[in-house]
């Protein structure tokens, strides 16, 4: 079950999966997919992690797209663990992405991991403004009415830690959507400095649960 809230007078839905849905625009937004992470680590001589995270992340995205039938999908940066990982995607993953993209608008916002266009179709932008909301990868403290990702916020309740959205009157920060992603505690100074008093954390999981930050 999603959690509905308003930002800049727009009604938005935080989905339990960590995706954001904007009904008025039929827009689905996901952040920090980090596709190809295991491949990048292996390439750099690091650990050989189970090479299944791309299909796991894509099947999660597939399910959200299937449920919301969006007209527009925005990937909010760090969609790929690096540009080489985007090029190195297996054919099955490429085909899968192509199928998801078919028949809808698709925007890749540039992240710090994947700066630059990738050879996968869709529109590539540094940021996107729609109506009164701006989508960018990293929150800009000077700006308002913005939706961003990057920090992978998570919060702890009853001893278990979960990825979460962070919401205050000015901004929304999305959790990381990718399978192989860690998190930054919501009480970390970097996030505290960005979020105002009275901010909420919206936990992902079985259902989207708001708690005071």
């Amino acid at each position, binding site marked *: 079950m999603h959690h509905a809230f308003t930002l800049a007078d727009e009604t938005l839905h935080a989905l339990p999966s960590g995706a954001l849905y904007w009904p008025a625009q039929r827009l689905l937004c996901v952040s920090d997919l980090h596709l190809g992470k295991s491949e990048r680590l292996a390439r750099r001589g690091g650990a*050989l992690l*189970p090479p299944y995270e791309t299909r796991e992340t894509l099947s999660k995205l597939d399910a959200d797209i299937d449920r919301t039938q969006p007209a527009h999908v925005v990937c909010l940066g760090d969609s790929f663990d690096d540009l080489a990982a985007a090029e190195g995607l*297996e054919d099955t993953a490429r085909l899968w992405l192509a199928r998801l993209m078919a028949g809808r608008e698709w925007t890749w916002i540039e992240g710090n991991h994947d700066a630059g266009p990738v050879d996968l179709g869709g529109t590539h932008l540094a940021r996107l403004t729609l109506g009164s909301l701006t989508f960018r990868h990293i929150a800009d403290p000077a700006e308002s009415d913005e939706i961003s990702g990057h920090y992978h916020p998570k919060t702890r309740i009853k001893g278990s830690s979960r990825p979460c959205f962070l919401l205050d009157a000015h901004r929304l920060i999305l959790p990381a959507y990718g399978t192989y992603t860690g998190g930054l505690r919501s009480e970390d100074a970097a996030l505290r400095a960005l979020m105002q008093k009275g901010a909420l954390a919206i936990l992902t999981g079985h259902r989207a*649960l708001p708690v005071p930050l």
Partner: protein
Amino acid sequence: MHARLHCASAPAAAQPLSPNPLKQKPLPPTPNPPYLPGMTLPQPLTDWFSAKGWTLHAHQQAMLARAKDPATLLIAPTGGGKTLAGFLPTLAELGTTPPPGLHTLYISPLKALTADIRRNLRTPVEGAGLPIRVEDRTGDTTYTQRRRQRADPPHILLTTPESLALLLSYEDAPRIFQSLQRVVIDELHALAESKRGDQLMLLLSRLESLSPNLRRVGLSATVEDPPALARFLAPQACNILQADPGPDPDIAMLETDDPPPWSGGGGRYAMRAILDQVRRHRTTLIFHNTRAQAELFFHDLWLQNDEGLPIGIHHGSLAREQRERVETAMVEGKLRAIVCTGSLDLGIDWGDVDLVIQVGAPKNVKRLVQRIGRANHRYNAPSKALILPANRFEVVECRAALDAVRDHTLDGEPRGPGPRDVLCQHILLTAAAGPFCADALYGEVTRAGPYAALTRPEFDACLDFCATGGYALRAYDKWQRLQEKSGKWQLRDPRTAAIIRQNLGTIIDTETLKVRLRNRLGGTPLGEVEEGFASTLTPGDTFLIGGQVVRYEGLKEMTVEVSRQPGRDPKVATFNGTKFATSTLLTERILAIFQQESWPDLPTHTARWLALQRDVSRLPSPDRLLVESFPHDGREHLCIYGFAGRNAMQTLALLVTKVMEEQGLAPLGFVATDYATLIWGLDPVTDAAPLFDLARLRDGLETWLAGNAVMKRTFRASAIIAGLIERSHQGRRKSGRQATFSSDILYDTLRKYDPDHLLLQVTREEAERGLVDFARIEDMLARVAGRIDLIRLPRVTPLAAPLFLEPNKIPVHGTGRDRMVEEAARKLMEEAGLA
């Protein structure tokens, strides 16, 4: 082959010496030392020993006599000069004109022990003026010192398994070890109990390839199966030397005026009696089974210690500075007692300990015997020990343990085959040192005791895991970690060697946070608590650490900052450390005690309790499974007397409640102890047999229990050891958290996409033992062979009653976890006025 050697009994001790090197206890000169073939000690050393009034024990002579044999296991009690026995052949061979190069490697499980042995070995070496260089090398050794040791090794190097692993991962390992003649492994019995032992045996095989004439010596405390330990040390051939075990210990149950409570641990009811014992002895070690109990006990002890007897506390979660302060005070004879845990099971002699008190049932006879041995201030005088049952059930267990000590029966589960995660690490270590040939490495590995039965396909699967990750999806053929080039395996990227070295070792720390007193200068370190416990704290909470109550102030750069605040009712830090399950031997003895007609050996309160149980229900017996069903307080209860040890009884509870849920019996919760599991729910169980169907239980283990936190923790440990994930270093956790993610994600991903992966196989194997301990459920069901007695009773039975008082009740919930979180979230929103 066995050789049982006795040394002459000592009518009177010679001059006591101080310091007392190498636990060597003074004995009177033997008039005519028997002629022994083998080695002789250099004259200056013999002279120095004579000047000190020392004579070698029989087992020390025997070690010299057998110095040329390829492998020897020496079993000797604490205080028998075991370590000196291990070094004598080295001193004999090196003599007065030692050739340059490394001659002997000494390996101990404890860093502190290597430093201590270095000091004590230097005393005779320098005393006799022998030009022998003795150095230690551990994680604490400086970088320059370590560099120098590699370039110019000492004659005798004292180290730990982990430091040896690191040395062997360097390309110059062949040069360092080319002259090596002997390896001496101290406390082998302790190392053999964990994966550190498996790793060490692989390292010995490696060393043997580098120096083919290598001889190995294992030193061990008393163990239940010496031939098995000998096969572990050297599967080809190994001498076993047993030193005179000395007189039987003087051990008894500590009787108190008040009977022990019905449940709980810690033995705080007997504080007065314990203080009284401390007063009547010079130095007492008070052993506890858990750190949390040691903390609570120590806190209470000080509240009742009216005379202000100097008493310290020592356990593995205290800061090194704190522990060292206690150790120093102990060696100087300034303490009358130390409240401690397994952290003092091993290690140097702590001054003149004349009494050991074991608080709580010992769970394991072998460990009890080894602990008793710590009260050894006089070799050949009986060690004195008291055991204190913490509750009524433990009275029976303590009785069983005393009987076992008297009968010289020791427990111990047979070792499983060498774990494959350790082998994976060894393959990576070998690759870090240089290219290797798979055939040769397989041969080397199977010469190590724990891996003697390893098949070639098993080895190849481990090699494949190291090279490609071993996934069903061949994703990394381009980015292999190891590549085969002209018949030799090597690292694709040489920089990988540094990562491998950083992750060597098989000790997996739980994620802990340091605790410091908050002040301007950074504060005194007090110890550490587990991250999970720290996350439950809010500023103002108080908790116990190192026997003092502190107030949680906040978290700063991954350090828990506290201030002193005496007197409040504190929380107790939880430590996920080892909670030992009662051994099979002890549970068998307990069940045998239950079968007695009467119990003259037990205190009256306990004998009456058992008699009453026999009247209203039955007592559990070895070849049947007693299951009681009764209503209480509006709930139905089921009590299963499985006697399979804490871990297995908990696993059994998880599996049985799952079956009950499927049957619509609405279980609500359970509590498990070493002896029994109590389950409560809405409906009574009328047919017990389906609950204990082995196939169904095993199915539950394979399917839904596989998602259990215990399994995830088991996986994490294996994944770190095998090199799938890197250890989380303190520094990295501070900075790059977004990059690191929980190993649970990897576990879930593998279960979903690659269920037969090597590391899942290893995780399942581990689940058979250790925390899940499914093997003991199987043993229990085999023992009762379907003879299950379900008895319906009108009310709680005497034996079941204490279970109601047990802490750690575990709720059963299908979707309950989510409900709990939702409820908590709703409350928080309400409190914040946001609902």
